[in-house]
């Protein structure tokens, strides 16, 4: 396996690679030695399938004089001390910008046989930044002098936040990226490397996108400008008389610098203020200087003229130069510049409206700072809708939803409203008479353009009282937008409960069903009531509780509760990622043993009549997204009582086959389960809602126009509020940090995570069992004990990952059920902003996991094992405890033994087990001091149908006994008889899961 790396040398991306099959050290005696395990340029070319020019790098690498330290991705155990830097000669490939772009754009493609180092991943982020600049038109054509002559190049323009983004990229650069000697023997700085990289990628991206010349008419005798323009889309080098090129070069440079001048320590801020007194309508735009590094530092123009420094040398000049630039976009600034010491300018109401709509966005885009009054975008005329149910509500106030239907009629009244105030027809007429786009209503400024005014006048003429059905109210809440949006809704009764988004609080909790072999926590009872309520109304539900709050058990409770009293509704279909099928199976068996479950999955799954019969006999059918897609016709032949999508992010792309297949299954009810905060990912939210309540939110295009675009682009609080109103009836999301939830949770919550084996793992497991049982049968004494322990180790390694057992440096993705589940869980908890401790018993497994998880998750993965020196260990702990970024701390169980205090974590995961609960708990607790304010979720990974599950059961069954017999190690296992041993380690058929 190759681990590919990249660095920049003399502005060009240079690729090199480490080869896992080569020896770790060298014996050659040279001044600068050849890297012992670097791949040759030819191998690199073959592995990457790209063109490059073979070359040789001189790299500074840590390590000893005979052995450079391998990168983490190589998966070799790293020596405890990294040593000093030494120079190494490394075969490499110099890539053209196009090739660089190809390589960097495809690093997430798992099908390639190579692994990419964190340096390549980092450079891909830099390249992504360059692409982003191009897509926003932040480039300017210019000339650079290159070895081949003058070249027409597109240069990146960094204005405002882009400049700080680029600086941030340089600051974060992994040291390896700047470890290459230039041909001159110099070492480039991080800032230079990022500069060069962004410039070369941006130029290359522009050329790829502009596939035609900028001017169509070729000339027989092209001028210099013609040739330069042609070179901007064609071959970059162009020729011309030196002095002419110099002149052109200078004027283009001058232009570039003028355009980029927005990037200084201060920028001009424009603040729009309302007319202060009544009677006149003079608005003002006030000028000020704002520090770009500390945005709270604002110095008004008045103080600039009085000599305030504003953190720059010539604040007055910065202000004037900024105003001079701004006047190109906002010509009214010229008026203010007629004064000696301009501090602002006066605007009429009409101008102020134009400023809001036209000038302010333009100034912002150009890197200026703009401050608008708080009401801008937030207060507009809208409709307030109140409804009263025609049937009396439950006198106790607690509604159960029983008997209520969305087709029931309610009385309604609609009013024109501004904030909390109702606007009368007379007031509206007065506003219409003013004919200005900004009006003051009861001391409050409001935007009122012609369209809104027309809509408001029309609204006043329509009937504003009467009766409608609940369904129509719901439709109004979701679709009542346009020029006169619905801004407030007041409803009583069950309809009010539904629309409030707090139905779970208002409904009477449904107690734990008798057939549930567990006690629901209070918030889970409320969740059950909510699921039942929506179910009865025929509405789909999105249960988006935080991970670990028990979404599965709430769904199982719903199934148990609807079977109370012997009724037998049609079966529910659960569709889950493959990695969760085992978990559903085990949790169902454990919590509602009375449910008949059929798992529709794997090559031997039932077809046609067999299938129909199996489903008819089942209460719960469990399948995977893959199988549901493949068997969509078969599954669509059943009328399901309910379809449940677990990890509903799986259908976030509505156009995929998977999402379509799942959406098209006929069902009376639908439930989507997700732990990721859907409200922040609007495309995903639409797709999940489209599954739960088909057609309710309208088409994706309508949704995008009405909600997603305004929210994502304009940061529109009103659209955000409207979206919340439209979706809150259907989404229940409780956070584990909610005060009420915390009080319901135990301090330390233990969760077992059941995983399946992949077929590869299963065959390795089976082969080990066959081989070892034979040997154990023919041995005794110390030899037998040794064999038993070795067997246990090998089987646990097979459960972890084939690469862990085989130690062949092979690639990790897609080969382990445990790893798949681990990735999902880590993804989810990091998305929630949490930190986790991840324990493994095996340092070698940690060494494999560390670079893989770091690359997969894109978040810091710290790795603490026995070989980490004290200083580094303290740094890691420091970072984990104090950096507010979601982080995974991977620890070997042994290294975690002493003196750790990692209270920043609220998740503990044991990816493999130490079959000794005392030792396990001790490690957990030592690392994690209980008694903090937050709750802790402890997860233990267990492979179904393997020794992991059996031993877990044994420990559970006789916990007291276990504590006595297990002592301090795993030796107790060696005392088992051969028959007992066979039973413990044999592989059950349900262990395997395949796609």
């Amino acid at each position, binding site marked *: 396996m190759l681990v590919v790396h990249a660095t920049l040398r003399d502005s060009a991306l240079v690729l090199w690679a480490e080869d896992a099959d080569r020896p770790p050290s060298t014996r050659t005696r040279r001044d600068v030695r050849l890297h012992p395990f670097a791949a040759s340029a030819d191998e690199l070319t073959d592995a990457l399938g790209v063109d490059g020019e073979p070359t040789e790098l001189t790299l*500074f690498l*840590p390590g000893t004089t005979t052995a450079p330290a391998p990168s983490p991705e190589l998966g070799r155990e790293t020596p405890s001390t*990294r040593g*000093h*830097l030494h120079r190494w000669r490394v075969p490499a490939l110099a890539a053209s910008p196009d090739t660089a772009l190809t390589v960097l754009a495809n690093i997430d493609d798992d099908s390639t046989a190579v692994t990419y*180092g*964190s*340096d390549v991943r*980092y450079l891909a982020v830099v390249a992504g930044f360059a692409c982003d600049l*191009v897509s*926003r*038109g932040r480039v300017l*054509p210019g000339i650079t002098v290159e070895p081949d002559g003058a070249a027409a190049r597109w240069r990146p*323009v960094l204005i405002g*936040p*882009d400049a700080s*983004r680029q600086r*941030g*990229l340089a600051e974060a*650069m992994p*040291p390896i990226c*700047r470890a290459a000697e230039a041909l001159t023997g110099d*070492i480039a*700085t991080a*800032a230079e490397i990022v500069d060069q990289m962004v410039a070369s990628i941006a130029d290359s991206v522009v050329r790829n*996108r*502009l596939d035609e010349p*900028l*001017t169509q*008419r070729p000339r027989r005798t092209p001028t210099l*400008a013609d040739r330069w323009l042609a070179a901007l889309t064609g071959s970059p080098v162009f020729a011309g*008389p030196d*002095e*002419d090129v110099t002149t*052109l070069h*200078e*004027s283009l440079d001058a*232009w570039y610098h*003028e355009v980029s001048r927005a990037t*200084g*320590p201060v920028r001009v801020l424009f603040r729009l203020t309302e007319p202060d007194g009544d009677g006149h309508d003079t608005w003002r735009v006030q000028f000020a200087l704002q520090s770009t*590094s500390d945005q709270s530092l604002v110095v008004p123009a008045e103080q600039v*003229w009085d000599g305030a420094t504003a953190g720059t*040398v010539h604040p*007055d*000049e910065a202000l*004037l*130069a900024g105003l*001079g*630039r701004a*006047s190109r*976009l906002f010509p009214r600034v010229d008026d*203010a*510049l007629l004064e000696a010491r301009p501090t602002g300018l006066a605007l009429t109401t009409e101008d102020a409206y134009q400023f809001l709509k036209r000038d302010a966005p333009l100034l912002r*885009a*150009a890197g200026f700072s703009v401050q608008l009054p708080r009401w801008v975008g937030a207060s507009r005329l809208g409709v307030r809708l109140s409804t009263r149910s025609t049937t009396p509500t439950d006198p106790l106030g607690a509604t159960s939803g029983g008997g209520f239907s969305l087709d029931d009629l309610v009385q309604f009244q609609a009013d024109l409203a501004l904030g909390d105030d109702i606007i009368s027809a007379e007031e509206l007429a007065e506003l219409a008479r003013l004919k200005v786009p900004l009006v003051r209503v009861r001391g409050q400024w409001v935007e009122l353009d012609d369209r809104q005014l027309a809509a408001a006048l029309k609204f006043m003429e329509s009937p504003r009282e009467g009766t409608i059905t609940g369904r129509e109210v719901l439709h109004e809440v979701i679709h009542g937008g346009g020029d006169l949006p619905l801004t407030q809704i007041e409803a009583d009764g069950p309809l009010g409960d539904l629309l409030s988004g707090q139905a779970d609080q208002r409904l009477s909790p449904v107690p734990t069903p008798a057939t549930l072999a567990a006690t629901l926590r209070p918030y889970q009872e409320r969740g059950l009531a909510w699921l039942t309520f929506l179910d009865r109304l025929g509405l789909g539900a999105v249960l988006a509780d935080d991970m670990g709050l028990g979404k599965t058990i709430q769904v199982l409770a719903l199934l148990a509760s609807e079977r109370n009293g012997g009724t037998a509704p049609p079966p529910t279909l659960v569709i889950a990622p493959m990695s969760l099928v085992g978990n559903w199976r085990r949790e169902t068996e454990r919590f509602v043993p009375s449910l008949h479950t059929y798992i529709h999955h794997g090559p031997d799954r039932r077809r046609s009549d067999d299938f129909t019969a199996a489903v008819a006999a089942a209460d719960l059918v469990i399948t995977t997204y893959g199988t549901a897609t493949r068997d969509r016709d078969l599954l669509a032949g059943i009328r399901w009582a309910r379809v449940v999508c677990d990890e509903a992010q799986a259908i976030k792309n509505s156009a995929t086959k998977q999402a379509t297949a799942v959406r098209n299954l006929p069902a009376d009810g639908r439930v989507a389960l997700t732990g990721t905060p859907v409200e922040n990912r609007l495309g995903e939210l639409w797709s999940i809602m489209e599954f739960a309540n088909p057609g309710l939110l309208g088409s994706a295009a309508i949704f995008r126009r009405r909600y997603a675009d305004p929210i*994502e682009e304009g940061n529109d609080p009103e659209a955000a509020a409207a979206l919340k109103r439209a979706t809150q009836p259907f989404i229940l999301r409780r956070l584990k940090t909610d005060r009420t939830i915390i009080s319901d949770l135990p301090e330390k919550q233990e969760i077992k995570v059941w995983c399946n084996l992949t077929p590869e793992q299963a065959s390795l497991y089976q082969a080990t069992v066959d081989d070892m049982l034979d040997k154990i049968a023919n041995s005794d004494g110390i030899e037998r004990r040794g064999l038993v322990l070795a067997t246990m180790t090998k089987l646990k390694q097979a459960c972890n990952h084939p690469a862990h057992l085989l130690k062949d440096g092979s690639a990790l993705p897609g080969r382990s059920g445990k790893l798949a589940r681990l990735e999902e869980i880590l993804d989810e908890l990091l998305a929630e902003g949490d930190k986790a401790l991840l324990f493994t018993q095996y340092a070698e497994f940690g060494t494999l996991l560390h670079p893989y998880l770091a690359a997969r998750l*894109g*978040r810091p993965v710290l790795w603490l094992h026995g070989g980490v020196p004290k200083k580094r260990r303290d*740094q890691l702990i420091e970072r984990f405890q104090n950096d507010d970024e979601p982080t995974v701390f991977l620890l070997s169980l042994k290294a975690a033994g002493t003196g750790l205090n990692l209270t920043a974590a609220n998740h503990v995961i044991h990816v493999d087990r130490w079959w000794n609960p005392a030792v396990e708990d001790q490690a957990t607790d030592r690392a994690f001091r209980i008694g903090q304010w937050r709750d802790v979720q402890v997860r233990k990974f267990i492979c179904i149908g393997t020794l992991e599950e059996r031993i877990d059961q044994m420990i559970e069954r006789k916990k007291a006994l276990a504590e006595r017999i297990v002592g301090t190690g795993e030796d107790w296992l060696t005392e088992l008889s051969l028959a007992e041993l066979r039973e413990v380690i044999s592989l059950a058929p349900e262990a395997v899961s395949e796609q």
Partner: protein
Amino acid sequence: MSWYFDEPTTRRKVEGGIKARTKRGKIGERWWSRRFIDVLESYGVGGRLQRGRTYARAGQVVHLALGPGIVVATVQGSRLEPYRVTIGVERLTDEQWRDVEAALAGRAVFRAKLLAGEMPQEIEDVFDDVGVPLFPELLADFDMDCSCPDWGLPCKHQAAVLYLLAERFDDDPFQVLLWRGKERDDLLARLRASAPAEASDDPTPVVDAPLNECVDAYWEPSVSLTRLRTHEPPPPSPSDLVLRLAEPPEIHVRRQPLVDLLAPAYAKLTAD
């Protein structure tokens, strides 16, 4: 072909001379340099001016220096020895400059535009007010001399220098003011409220830790990639915003201004 004595032989080729940027059409694009050229061309001495332009484009002007009140240039003509051209203009007296400075300081627009590399049009009024027009109105206001035998005013060598001067004014309007006796920094210093000082290039440069202090985390970015990717969504902006931020250079291709040629490309780059 004419046989006047002022055009006896062909000009000698010059290596490394100063060439006019424009290859055809007018020279001098900004209003302020146009104003200057207009004075010259209002005299209608077409033949010489045409030849002067040709000289300017061919790079016959070997050297051109501009200082307060004077321009000195050497122009390669037909003789071996290049001609020496001087073009004098009336410098403003210190008193006149004080008046101009006072008037300029009275309106921020002047400083704002001058700092942005532009010449505010109203600046003409300021000079008119102190009685010294910024641009001489008559050719006679220039004190011109050339060592060539041509008695015409201007001769083609002077004309060539005047055209190049116009281009120089295009690039840097402060050169006009320098010609009238005031250096850029001097003028700006006087227009500033505070005392001048040198500004640093980059207020917050990135400082790399020495490589040998990084061996413990040699392969890791110091900030996670997810965090590096995370940023505030940029405000929406028109596709050609960067083309509108500053006065573009006077580059034309087939009579079309550069910006007009570029705008469609920007629309393409920013299309989804």
